């Protein structure tokens, strides 16, 4: 007897069994040299989740990123942004600005598989520990350099402080997001509607995109290294990482000379596909094929809308005037019900057609949804140093080498004794000497 697929895969991916399973990257040593760089911080966590041994090397005074987070909550004085992604690594200090520190890095890099850095382009090279210095010591090294503009090209040498907001702006995503201005806006700067501007995604999404792309490239490079023995350098711009997700934005300009604009809650390709008010907040609703749109009309008790000349075909429904009118029809219905009430109607509908529907959840509502905890998507970690922490768990589900969270993070230099003993044979006297001279 074959169990149903859902039962089989649930068992194969059982979050409770993850720690029994092997790890895809557990033969790799990763040096996290990122300082004040969130993309590097996240990438190092991704690789650690998949099993790599990651050693973070930060200045003896600590990574400035440890102070990053909301002003009204810290843990042990640490910023929540840093702690959210500080997982699965050993924490050592090392001053890369001093020749002795650079010498120690050289020795570590000689045996590492991957090095991650996010310094201003050229900085680590100026210290004599860039890729062109390290590659001769370790031809198998994969050196990952993360920055806003990249390591080459007319803007590469620009320097200057880097931030997620800057990368979101350069990526083009902000231009496409947010409420459009309209005829009722009295002034261009939207004094009446401050939201009628290009709008940022609320999290540091460019850093996650950068980390994901760098992860893809690093693992691709590792596969190549298996075939060739050859390491290489990888250059990922945070702005370009997010830009690659922008769909047909460039091609629209090339093909039609049209500059893609922000559309607020409307969608450029399909309708119904939007946010609508509900009695207890907001919700997302979609049904854009004829069958699925018909299902929405049926659930609303408005079957005649499918015969309305403005809404008859997929193409009709996407025309700007029609999609706005269509949203109004749905919104004037949805506002009378709670999200739960509408979801019940959607799930009870026999078809034909399927309506996609769900509430706009605040984070607390998402956390209250049992599904994510069952899936192992969230974890409540009791950490000996930081206490009780609610964390996003690794995102991949894999049946043979599932990722896992081991430790959420540690203070700067927490593992100095262990790391320097294991990799250099240094004992307490040597460490004290290094510390006294600010090397660690």
């Amino acid at each position, binding site marked *: 007897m074959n169990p149903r*697929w*859902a039962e089989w*895969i649930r068992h194969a*991916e059982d979050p409770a069994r993850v720690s029994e399973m092997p790890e*895809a*990257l557990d033969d790799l040593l990763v040096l996290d040299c990122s300082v004040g760089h969130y993309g590097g911080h996240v990438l190092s966590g991704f690789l650690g989740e998949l099993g790599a041994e990651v050693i973070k090397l930060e200045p003896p005074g600590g990574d400035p990123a440890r102070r*990053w987070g*909301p002003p*009204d909550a810290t843990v042990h004085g640490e*910023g*929540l942004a840093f702690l*959210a992604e500080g997982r699965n690594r050993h924490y050592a200090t090392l001053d890369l600005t001093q020749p002795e520190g650079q010498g120690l890095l050289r020795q570590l890099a000689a045996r590492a598989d991957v090095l991650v850095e996010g310094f201003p382009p050229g900085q680590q*090279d*100026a210290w004599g520990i860039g*890729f062109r210095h390290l590659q001769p010591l370790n031809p198998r090294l994969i050196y990952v350099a993360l920055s806003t503009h*990249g*390591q*080459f*090209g*007319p803007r*590469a040498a620009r320097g200057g402080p880097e931030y997620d*907001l800057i990368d979101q702006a350069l*990526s083009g995503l902000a231009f*496409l997001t947010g409420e459009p201005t309209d005829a009722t806006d009295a002034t261009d700067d939207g004094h009446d509607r401050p939201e009628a501007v290009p*709008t*940022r995604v*609320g999290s*540091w999404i460019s850093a*996650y995109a950068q980390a994901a792309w760098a992860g*893809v490239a690093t693992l*691709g490079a590792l596969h190549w290294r298996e075939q060739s023995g050859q390491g*290489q350098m990888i*250059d990922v711009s945070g702005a*370009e990482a997010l830009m690659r997700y922008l*769909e*047909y934005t460039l091609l*629209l*300009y*090339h093909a*039609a000379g049209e500059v893609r604009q*922000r559309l607020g809650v409307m969608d*450029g*390709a399909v309708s119904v596909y939007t*946010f609508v008010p509900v009695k207890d907040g*907001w919700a997302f609703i*979609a049904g854009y094929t004829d069958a699925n749109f018909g299902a929405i009309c049926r659930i609303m008790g408005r079957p005649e809308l499918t015969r309305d000349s403005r809404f008859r075909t*997929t193409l009709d429904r996407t025309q700007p005037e029609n999609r706005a009118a269509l949203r109004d029809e749905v919104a004037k219905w949805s506002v009378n019900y709670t999200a739960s009430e509408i979801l019940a109607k959607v799930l009870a509908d026999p078809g034909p057609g399927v309506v*996609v529907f769900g509430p*706009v959840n605040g*984070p*607390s509502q*998402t956390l209250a949804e049992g*599904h994510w905890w069952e899936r192992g998507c*969230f974890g409540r970690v009791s950490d000996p140093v930081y206490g*009780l922490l609610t*964390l996003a768990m*690794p995102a*991949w*589900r*894999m049946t043979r080498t599932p990722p896992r969270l081991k430790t959420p993070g540690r203070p700067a230099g927490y593992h100095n004794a262990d790391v320097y003993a294991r990799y250099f044979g240094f004992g307490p006297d040597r460490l004290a000497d290094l510390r006294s001279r600010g090397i660690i």
Partner: protein
Amino acid sequence: MGESYFDWAARLFDPSLLHGKPEALQGIRVLDLSVIIFGPATADFLGELGAQVIKVEMPGGGDVTRILGHAGCFWKNVSVAFFPQNHSKYHIGVDMHHADGQALIRKLAARSDIVIENFKPGTTEAKWGLGYRQLREVNPRLIYVANTGFGQWGPLAEGRASYDGLAQAVSGLTAISGFEGALPTKVGNYLGDWFGACLAAMGTLAALRWRDRTGEGQFVEMAQCEGLVRALDWTWLYAGLTGRDRPKTGNRDPVFVPSGIFRCRDGYVAVVAGTDGEFQGLTTALGQPALAEDPRFRMAAARRERAHADALDALIGAWCRGRSREEVQVAARTHGFAAAPVMSGRDQYEDAHLRARRSVWESDDALYGRIVDYGPAPKLSATPARHKWVGRPVGWHNAHVLKGILGLTGAEIADLERRGVVGRWGDQRGAKPPDDWQGTGAPEL
């Protein structure tokens, strides 16, 4: 080292040399059964690194994205929305509902390293006999990748359909974005699809690493919602510690203040002055260096107070309004804070830096002619990512794949075509070649 860093890096990554360099995933074959964006983009990213991607579509119309896209913008008979996640693929038209079609897919899976699908959980197994449990029988080394909205199991995965917009909503992303009191912020692209595809590609390559080490394949899945949940940085820590939802902060970065997006004469800029030094530079640029000593602004903690941050935004806004985006950026570079234009598609199209890096990738395609699209994001020095061609009509590579890979004879293919198991484009927009196609160029063997 005599050569400057940037001269050296330009040589190391020189895009004009890329086609002479090897590909990281050469020899890896991906069988892409998926549709729309989430699955096809995952396959596309692997193809950029050199995997051979075979895209399976229904004969006739093919992938629905061929006709869905920017409110009816078709270019050379295809929706512009089809191209960005379908580069360098081998397009075959196979009806997977047909037993003989399933047999073909099974044969291809036996000869592939990776299979990608994004159908509702259990569909490929129950409807087509092409699920992981079946395909690993013909290929124990197979890496099978399944992308969905809510995942393969769990209360929300049972019978709940999902799109990117729903993932944005239920994940919490929508709630923490945008401006208080406004309509919800719908991210301007299908972020759940694209970011999810990028994570899926990373998971796939982790599985490939395990296979390189041990010979073992496995099943890998990505849920769109879970990808977005993973990308909300300190949201969950904050809720767990305070019992509160993090607030929307509009265009102000919640950690670095002052920051925001401001109107200039010729568009918008983002400005950030996140440290004391950067803030001092900003006040100099504003022509008001005394602000750096103003008790409202001298310390970072004071700058973050709502009323003070609002006051700074008003000053920065007024200063930007009379200037061009370029003037603001020059001032930022001169005085040591951060500023960048909010780039439009046109800005990117015309940008020399992006073109020099081939992040804006212009090519001369054999079928579609001159085309400009986003190039691969990561730059690899030894095995650069690349695009070789763009999307093709349905079934364009039938002969190349069925003869060249599976060794079917012409008669066998003709028979499959007669019975509708295999086919190419119908005479319909999205699926068929451009009107100026001369009838040549489809690889025949």
